[in-house]
């Protein structure tokens, strides 16, 4: 096994792929994406596909708007795909559940920046603290074909958050 492979498939990634967090049976939704707005929170769903390999993720986010800043109260998802895409959604779950919206946005942006470093890493302690387990995806940046896999869940989250309508309250 080459060094690149070991960097790509970090143990953290393999563990998350084997024991995914937040994975649930979402059941049927009306169409590819739905949004439901309640008094305290809103729930929305996004379905994303990577057409090159057929990976799929359906992600549902619940946003709590009772406080001064909207907070991601829960994320549930189902999907099928490679270990990189599935582990990435699992890591996403751990990072964003309980986080407020500005922190979620910053985490998503930092994760995208990390994958753009072509494996070099961000060399930024604050960024590393923010990303937690997601730092394990540093090596994915060396494999351009796999970057999309790592981003699939994050694309679904970004889309689902827009669908909650919570952005309009900013």
């Amino acid at each position, binding site marked *: *096994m*080459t060094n690149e*492979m070991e960097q790509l*498939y970090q143990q953290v990634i393999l563990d998350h*792929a084997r024991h995914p967090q937040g994975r649930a049976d979402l059941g049927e939704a009306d169409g590819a994406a739905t949004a439901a707005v309640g008094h305290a929170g809103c729930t929305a769903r996004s379905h994303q596909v990577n057409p*090159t390999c057929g*990976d799929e993720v359906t992600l549902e986010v619940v946003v709590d708007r009772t406080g001064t800043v909207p907070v991601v109260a829960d994320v549930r998802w189902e999907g099928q795909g490679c*270990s*990189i895409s*599935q582990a990435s959604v699992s890591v996403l779950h751990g990072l964003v559940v309980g986080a407020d919206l500005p922190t979620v946005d910053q985490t998503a942006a930092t994760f995208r920046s990390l994958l753009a470093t072509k494996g070099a890493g961000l060399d930024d302690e604050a960024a590393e603290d923010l990303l937690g387990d997601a730092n394990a995806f540093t090596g994915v940046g060396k494999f351009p074909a796999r970057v999309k896999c790592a981003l699939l869940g994050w694309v679904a989250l970004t889309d689902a958050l827009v669908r909650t309508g919570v952005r309009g309250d900013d």
Partner: protein
Amino acid sequence: MTAPFTASELATLRADFPLLARTLRDGRPLVYLDSGATAQKPQVVIDAETQFYTCTNAAVHRGAHRLAEEATDAFEQAREQVAAFVGADADELVWTQSSTGALNLVAYAIGNATAGRGGAAARRFALAPGDEIVVTVAEHHANLVPWQELAARTGTALRWVDVDDTGRLRTDTLDEVVTDRTRVVAFTHVSNVTGAITPVAPFVAAARRAGALTVLDASQSVPHLPVDLHALDVDFAAFTGHKMLGPTGVGALYGRRELLTDLPPVMTGGSMVEVVTMESATYAPPPQRFEAGTQMVAQAVALGVAAQYMTGLGMDRVAAHDAHIAALLLAAVADLPGVRVIGPTDAADRLAAVSVVVDGVHAHDVGQVLDDAGVAVRVGHHCAQPLHRRFGTTATTRASASVYTTEDDVAAFAQALAGVRTFFGVEAGQ
């Protein structure tokens, strides 16, 4: 029984393909098992394009100067070479950009005939509501989506022939699926996923009984088998250059002469007309009628050279070599726990394109481990999503061979594949 290439023949042959000599990271040799996607090119094919641009380049079928004549001769000689290679006559062979281009050409020409274009002669192709188009579950998207589009444009229905659990087309259902409402039967000669070779005769017979046209996707067969389109007796056939050791950007549509004569054009413009006034135009006879605009001349010339090269190898030998590699690939994966073949597991009537599912590991991850060992395979749905769905999966890992594939290539593939489940912590027997 024709013998496969000997080790020394294979070594000589491989020396014709410069790319096979390159190495990957850490100096690993390349194990190229993705020829079903695109084949590598022998030096004579690479040189043919350069030679054309260096010595002969000019516009074809126009201009009266010496170069124009030589370029036209080279272009038309290539047509003769490629037509002869597939058992057709030169005037039955239309250059297209690819198989996809060829299949779309037929589908859109039928659509144009349905819209009333092409005069009285083209009415034989016109579809009406209630008519049906038959395809198969094994089709590459290129021989499925154009027919879906045609059906949608013409108000006709799409029906299909299923495969059995070994990936063989259900020829026993042809009489149910192909009826007197059927106007077109479009089917693959060899599945790019299962590698299964379609028995063409029952499809042609069913279509004949129904009075339907046959359209054969020969993309995967022409590079690996002796193909005689006249003997197969299909009405149209599509194949592509880059899978048969030729360049990208060139493919061909075969059509029976009397059908091409009546078929209306699709692409229109220069070079496909006879008389043009401000109001209308009359069309050139085939094949020029279907070759509007500047053609891919250098690629066509090089494809002629590729056909000559394969003829020189002997297509019987090529087929025997392919069968040999198919048997080795099947034997190699049969020994691996948790590895399941999507397609026939017996080596008869199939090509050396073997797609597998590795239980518990996604194809993309399988491909990554193989790539790390220098083994290039295709992972994903291989542009055949319905067929993957039929087998309850979204993605497979496919090893596919060509004339230059060796026993060592198969061994390297098998060795790398054997390590996949261990790497991802999926225990044998799980």
